[in-house]
Structures are given as C-alpha cells and as structure tokens.
C-alpha cells in the first residue's frame, strides 16, 4: 500500500476547464504509456488536448491515431498486454464499433481506462447526450462509473487506473460523463500536483506481461473445456471491485479530502420518495430536492456512480425505508418491460418483504434538456401512483406524444 499524504492547498492548481479537458489533464498526470483513439464528438477534446501535451513534450505517451474505434480498443489491448498503462476515449457510434473488443479487453483482464462522453446512438444521427451507448455495453465486463462534475471526472480517472490495475481486479474501467452537458461545460477544477498523482498511482505492475523472452499466450481458444472457467474468474474479479474501490477511495481522500462513494445520498434519511439517477441529472435532482424540501416535502436523491458492478446490497439498505423510488434514466431498452437502471433497482429490492414502489421515467433522449420541471413532474406522478398503489413499469417524460 502506498503512503499517501494530504496535498497542501498551495500545491493545488485551480483551473476552469471542460469535462473533456479535465479528463485529458488527468490522463496526462497519470503518466499513461499508450493512448490509441479515433476522434468522435463529444469526446474529441480529450484526445485533442492530449495530443497537444504530446506535441509539447509534456508527456512521453505513445499516441496511436488508429483508423477506427475497433482498432483503438484493439491497440489498447495489445499495449496493455505488454504491461503498459493505457487509455482511450470514445462516444456513441465509436463505442458501438468497439463492441467486439470491449469483451476481449475485459475477458483478457486488461486494466484499460476508457473515457466515454455519453452520446445518443443513430438513427436519426444525433451528437447529444443520453446513456444508450454505455448502457448497451453494461454486460461487456467493464467497470462503469458515471460522473456529475468536471472535478469528479478528473478525480475518477485518476482512481480508475488504481482500481483497474489492482491485481485483485484487473478489469477495464469506463469513466462516463454526459456529452456536451459536462464534456463541454467549463467548471472550476482543482488539479493535484503531478508528483502526487504519480506517487498515488505508482508504476503499473502487470500480473503477466507479453515478453518475447518468456512467451505466454493470452486470450487463446477455450471451448467447452475451459471457457466457462474464464468467465467464472472474471465474475469473481468483478465481485472484488467494491473492496478495492473502497480502499482506493480512502487513499484518495487522504490525499485530497474528497470521496464520492459508489453512490451519493442526498437528504434521504427521512425521505418518502427517493429520486434515483446518475450523471448530470443527479445534480439537477439535488437542486429539485432542495426546493421541494422547502415546501415541506420529504424527498431525497440517490445519485449512482458505479453502475457496474451494481451496488445492489448497499443500495437496498438505503432505499428500503422509502415509500417510493423514482428512477430517471436516459435510455429506452426497446421491448424491455422497463429500462436498464430501473431493472437493476427493481432486482435489488425484489427480495425485500416490503419494498418501495418503483417508478421509471425515461428522460432526455438525444440531449433533450432535463430541467428541474421534468424531475418535479416525475415526483408528482410518483405521488399519484403511491396513492393509487400501483405504477406503470415505465413511461417517458419531456417528449411530444
């Protein structure tokens, strides 16, 4: 375990930067060895900024400008297999094109950090935010963490490498920010001194590395004989993530005073209705709760950060005493009885003898703005459904019908 000391305030640099820039700066300070990427809006600034660092000689990273996202993740897997610290970034169709290799990265236990600026999938073509892209990759074996602010994105990227590279985990991590809403939003970000970040992370120590002098085979053929055992091991690694995450966050807190948890609770102690969401709507929901509390309404927010592995047991304890949980999510799982986030919540609560009513509101597809009034509408509907004693499995809000 590394010895971590609190960084003195006068060593912290405050900058105004976008979510993308915050991630680029974090990647720079994490001293990554290889970055392979293909440009796609709204992630592009991450790689553009990083290329400037390379051109200015600020980092020694080898940047591989590949011809597609499929190649980007393939190059990341190869570099990670050699023992390098590796990152890439993408969004939307880019993530979709990476699909095949996402599973390889996870199954081959490559601790790659993938920044995703969440963006809707075509058609119609749309550059704006929703969560369809990374929700679609939820079963790929990546750890998934969603951020609300530029500061959180910066901090999370730094912690992501330490979680991913821990030998109890060895899994890739997606760090997700809302496209445009956060990726292009300038905020105040406190940056750590580079030495502190590098001391926190150390140099990656690969469990096994490709080495011509000691050849090994990675990701070989495994059929009915051993494939299942690979998956069993991968599943156990995922199960160890919460413990490692907790350890890494505790060290990070010692260094910065900041910690975020696998989820954030906000004014939930006596809440009858808990709003459950993540990313930027998590922030707007907190503002809504402040306003509703002033009117005497007992509402609170749980803002999820870690979608994979989903913290079902810990959430159950927080949600179980509410009368209702109102889920707000930027994805429609077509044909599904409800949608990815609500499905997880309902599963987490199902074994309780008495469980809260769960409502599921699909919001903000294709970047449709989610103002406080959309959240309030969902809360009001949830109140009505509580009175009636039943709710629809899901509904859409903020759309012309």
């Amino acid at each position, binding site marked *: 375990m590394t010895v971590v000391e609190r960084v003195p305030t006068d060593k912290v640099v405050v900058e*105004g930067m976008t979510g993308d820039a915050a991630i680029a700066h974090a990647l720079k300070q994490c001293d990554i060895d290889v970055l392979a990427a293909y440009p796609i809006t709204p992630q592009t600034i991450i790689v553009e900024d990083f290329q400037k660092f390379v051109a200015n000689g600020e980092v020694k990273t080898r940047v591989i400008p590949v011809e597609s996202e499929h190649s980007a993740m393939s190059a990341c897997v190869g570099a990670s297999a050699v023992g390098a610290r590796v990152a890439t970034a993408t969004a939307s169709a880019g993530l979709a094109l990476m699909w095949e290799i996402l599973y390889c990265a996870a199954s081959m236990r490559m601790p790659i950090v993938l920044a995703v600026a969440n963006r809707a999938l075509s058609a119609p073509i749309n550059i704006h935010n929703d969560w369809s892209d990374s929700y679609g990759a939820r079963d790929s074996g990546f750890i998934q963490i969603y951020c609300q602010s530029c500061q959180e994105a910066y901090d999370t990227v730094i912690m992501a490498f330490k979680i991913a590279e821990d030998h109890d985990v060895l899994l890739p991590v997606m760090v997700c920010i*809302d496209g445009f809403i956060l990726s*292009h*939003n300038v905020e*105040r970000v406190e940056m750590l001194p580079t030495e502190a970040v590098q001391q926190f992370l150390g140099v990656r120590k690969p469990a096994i590395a490709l080495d011509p002098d000691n050849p090994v085979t990675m990701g070989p053929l495994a059929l009915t004989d051993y494939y299942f055992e690979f998956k069993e091991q991968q599943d156990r690694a995922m199960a160890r993530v919460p413990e490692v995450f907790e350890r890494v966050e505790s060290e990070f807190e010692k260094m910065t005073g900041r910690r975020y948890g696998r989820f954030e609770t906000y004014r939930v102690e006596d809440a009858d209705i808990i709003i459950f969401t993540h990313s930027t709507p998590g922030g707007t929901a907190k*503002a809504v709760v402040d306003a509703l509390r002033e009117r005497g309404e007992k509402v609170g927010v749980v803002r999820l950060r870690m979608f994979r592995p989903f913290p079902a047991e810990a959430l159950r304890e927080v949600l179980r005493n509410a009368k209702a949980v109102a889920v707000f999510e930027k994805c429609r799982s077509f044909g599904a009885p409800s949608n990815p986030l609500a499905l997880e919540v309902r599963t987490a609560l199902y074994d309780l003898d008495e469980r809260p009513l769960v409502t599921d509101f699909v919001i903000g597809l294709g970047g449709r703005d989610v103002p406080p009034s959309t959240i309030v509408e969902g809360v009001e509907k949830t109140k009505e459904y509580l009175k009636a004693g039943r709710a629809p499995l899901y509904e859409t809000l903020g759309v012309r019908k």
Partner: protein
Amino acid sequence: MLVEIRWHGRGGQGGVTSAELLAKAAYLDGYKGVQAFPFFGAERRGAPVKAFTRISDREINVRCQIYEPDIVAVLDPDIIDLIDVCEGLKDDGIVIVNTPKAPSELDLRGHVYTFDGTGIALRHGLLVAGLPVVNTTMLGAFARATGLVKLETVQRVIMEKWPGKVGERNAEGAKEAYDSCTDQG
C-alpha cells in the same frame, strides 16, 4: 446566491468564449461554483447562437439550460429583431446590449445597459478575419453593469487567454467598454 446568465450572439462572434472567460473571472474573484456551457445545435458562422454561465458562492448542482436568466448579454443587436432575447428574464433582470444606441431607444424589458462594443473593437483592432469581435468588450461592460466580477479580473483572464499584444488590445477594449457602458438615456 445563484446568478444565471444567457448570452446571445452569432456563430463566430465569441459568445461561447465570453461565457467561459466570465466563468474563469468569477472563480478568480472567489465564487465557489461556476458553469459555462454553449447551446450546441447546427452551429455555424453567422447563425444566432446561445451560451450560458452560472455563478454562485456555493457548488452548483443544477445542470440544464437556463430558462429564467438574471442577466442577458446580447453581442449582436440585430438578433433582437429575430428572437425574444428577454424570454424568461426575471423581473429585476439586467440586459446588456452591444449597440451605439441609448437604452431608451431599445424596446426591451428589464434594466437595460448599452455600450458600443463594435465601435470599440474597430478602434482597438479587435478583428478576426477582418470582422470586429466584441466578446472581450462585452466582458468589460458586464463587469460594469453587474458588479459581479472586477474589471481587473476580466482583463487578467483576457490576457491569459491571448498572451501578448492581442491580449493587451482586448484588455484595453474591455476597459473602454467598462467606462462607457451606460443605463442612461
């Protein structure tokens, strides 16, 4: 305290940069929470565009567009004829317009300030591709009209954004806008 600002300009006028530079000036002047973000559509040079800034003494949680601004900043006066720049403006809200006209000559709701940003930009050679760019003068006028940020801080972020002669000229333009911005007449 939370102040919400909406910027109206045309693509290429630097409205997005104004929103960002104001946010930077705000955190340098001690505000804990700042946000600056553009409204992205099919943006292109010359088309009406919007951007937003939020300033608060606390961390800002809300993350959506601004519908009821406290302050509206208009970089191109012709936009007033195209869209309702005062839409949703709070009753005690402030409107700052780049125009040689006096506030009373504009048919706008709110506490109106005007300044001749285009004239100042031309005098100080604040040109991009031969056209005057008024975003830095708007920041000077903003400091005067609202008192939310200091002129010195605005000049500092301008100088940091464009080091050297370009920054100096823009900082001078901001000062002239600060001095000439008026709610009289």
